[in-house]
């Protein structure tokens, strides 16, 4: 055993001598790897006595060879190396990489754990995609988004490298932008979407639609009693249409009424009488719920007589018949009237019951009158047209002129004019 140790110390001694080589500034002797174990080296390095085992003879040969090679590498640093120091220095700048925050990078997923995924983007170290940043919706594992080991995807860098050179990526940002674009498109196409009601505040409801959060004011909800007890509607899915999509100001306003209006639009023609219940009473009129959709009965349309306040005539819960005046599809509004239904002006105030009974009759008369008025208007228009045709003023058609001149068509006229000109 002593011989072996002695042999090693000889080798070590040789090492001590050869402190030349590539700038071994730190220590004068270098005892590497296995030698450390054997010698129980101290020498100021942090490795202390390790002579727990003796090295079997068979392994000696290999150790010696290794040591020799290491020495050789240090002594002849460029032997067998195909490029020189200078070449390396030159090419160095060519292969720099720089990733800034906000860059879009392509990366390959190679491992996903419970909290995120590791992605290889070609930088010094692989980048990390935390679960929270993987998707707008809540996830349980990154595989739900489709990030299996081996998939290649585009990501955006959100945080620069920490000490390990590791960057944090995000998919969420990209998805956010896509969602806003989609919403803008849906607004333009006027499509009905479905959204879930998340919570309510003083002005309306917060809904989740297309992965984003939007706002629906109370006035745009067509469900009964939405304002009085909003808790009923929590977590329900309702059809919605986009009213406003503004990404810069993060404004996303939707309307329920507009969406349901479209469905029930065909039910009411202008001039039809429907039974309705008073929903709310406002200073400027009352909201009547007719068949699920609410319409406005303006204060001026209630009766021929002048009214000061609506509360005297109507109160929430009253049933009455109203006539549909007009429908505004774009804003989902229906205008109603009871004025036209009064047999004698002022009846609404004095005798609502009578109005109720006579409603159908009055509506019919109203419709007749409307039809008459329309016919009259059309006749008037026709007359005006004929008047024009007689020749008063430059007519729209040259046919009369041509007939007078006795020419078959105008083209030949033009052609002859040209010929004569030439």
């Amino acid at each position, binding site marked *: 055993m002593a011989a072996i140790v002695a042999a090693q110390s000889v080798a070590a001694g040789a090492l001590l001598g050869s402190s030349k080589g590539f700038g071994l500034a*730190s220590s004068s002797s270098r005892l590497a*790897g*296995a030698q450390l174990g054997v010698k129980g080296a101290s020498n100021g390095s942090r490795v202390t006595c390790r002579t727990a085992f003796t090295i079997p003879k068979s*392994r000696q040969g290999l150790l010696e060879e290794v040591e020799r*090679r290491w020495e*050789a*590498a240090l002594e002849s640093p460029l032997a067998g190396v195909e490029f020189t120091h200078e070449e*390396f220095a030159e090419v160095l700048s060519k292969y720099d*990489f720089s990733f800034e925050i906000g860059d879009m990078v392509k990366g390959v997923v190679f491992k996903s754990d419970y909290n995120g995924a590791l992605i290889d983007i070609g930088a010094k170290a692989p980048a990390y995609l935390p679960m929270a940043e993987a998707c707008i919706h809540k996830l349980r594992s990154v595989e739900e988004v489709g990030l299996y080991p081996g998939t290649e995807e585009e990501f955006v860098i959100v945080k620069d490298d920490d000490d390990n050179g590791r960057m944090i990526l995000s998919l969420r940002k990209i998805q956010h932008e896509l969602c806003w674009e989609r919403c803008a498109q849906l607004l333009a196409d006027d499509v009905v979407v479905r959204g879930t009601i998340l919570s309510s505040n003083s002005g309306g409801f917060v809904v989740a639609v297309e992965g984003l959060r939007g706002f629906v004011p109370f006035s745009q909800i067509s469900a009964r009693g939405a304002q009085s007890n909003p808790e009923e509607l929590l977590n329900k899915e309702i059809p919605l249409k986009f009213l406003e999509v503004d990404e810069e100001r993060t404004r996303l306003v939707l309307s329920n009424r507009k969406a349901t209006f479209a469905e029930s639009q065909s039910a009411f023609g202008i001039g039809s009488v429907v039974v309705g219940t008073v929903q709310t009473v406002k200073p400027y009129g009352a909201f009547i719920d007719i068949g699920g959709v609410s319409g406005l009965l303006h204060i001026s349309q209630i009766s021929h007589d002048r009214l000061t306040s609506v509360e005297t005539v109507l109160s929430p819960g009253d049933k009455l018949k109203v006539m549909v005046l007009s429908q505004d599809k774009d804003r989902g509004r229906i205008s109603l009237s009871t004025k036209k239904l009064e047999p004698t002006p002022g009846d609404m105030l004095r005798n609502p019951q009578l109005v109720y009974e006579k409603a159908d009759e009055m509506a019919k008369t109203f419709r007749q009158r409307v039809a008459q008025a329309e016919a009259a208007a059309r006749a008037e228009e026709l007359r005006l047209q004929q008047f024009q045709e007689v020749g008063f003023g430059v007519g729209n058609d040259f046919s009369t002129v041509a007939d007078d001149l006795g020419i078959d068509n105008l083209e030949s006229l033009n052609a002859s004019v040209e010929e004569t000109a030439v």
Partner: protein
Amino acid sequence: MKQKSWNINLEEVMQVGVHFGHQARKWNPKMASYIFTERKGIHILNLTQTARFLSEACDLLANASSKGKQVLIVGTKYQAADLVASASIKARCHYINQKWLGGMLTNWSTIEKRLQRFKDLENKEKTGVLNQLPKKEAATLKRQLVQLRKYLGGIKYMTSLPDIVIIIDQQKEITAINECITLGIPTICLVDTDCDPDLTDIPIPANDDARASIRWILNKLTLAISEGRYNSIETE
């Protein structure tokens, strides 16, 4: 000791990103001689030295494997795990790519017993004995088999201590390095700017974080091993 050219092409190496080190403030001063310069707060390793050490390591491996020595590759990082497995299978050497169990080399006798059990269970599964057992026993044995396969799958055919050990990340496999030092097994290790080159016998200064870099170096080393073995078969 023939000086063979291992085709270490500068362009290729740099493209892969071998020369990037860790951030400048996280370095180990012992690596001073291997560092070329600092750029944008990151240390750059000297590729000439990398190439030199790498070619030396390849020669060593070729020589050793031609004499029939056993090689063990250790790499448990996320990035390296599957690369180590595929490289070792190609080069027909042993590997450890899941957790390095403490005492794997210094307590080799115990590990050997586990390997016996592993072989035993595999036989049982192959011959179908497991299917004849009651459900619960079969399930327990199968679970054991899965565990053994996961941790010891790479060293299934190892009969004694390896002769050379290749280690991918020094910081992560510090237990492995210490065991090799204690036993006097020479090691070849990828050292990054935050590692200690004195702990290993042949350090290869390289980037140990990026997958591409690890893959490239492993390719070279396993190529050397295969070549050595091929030569030995030829000369026989």
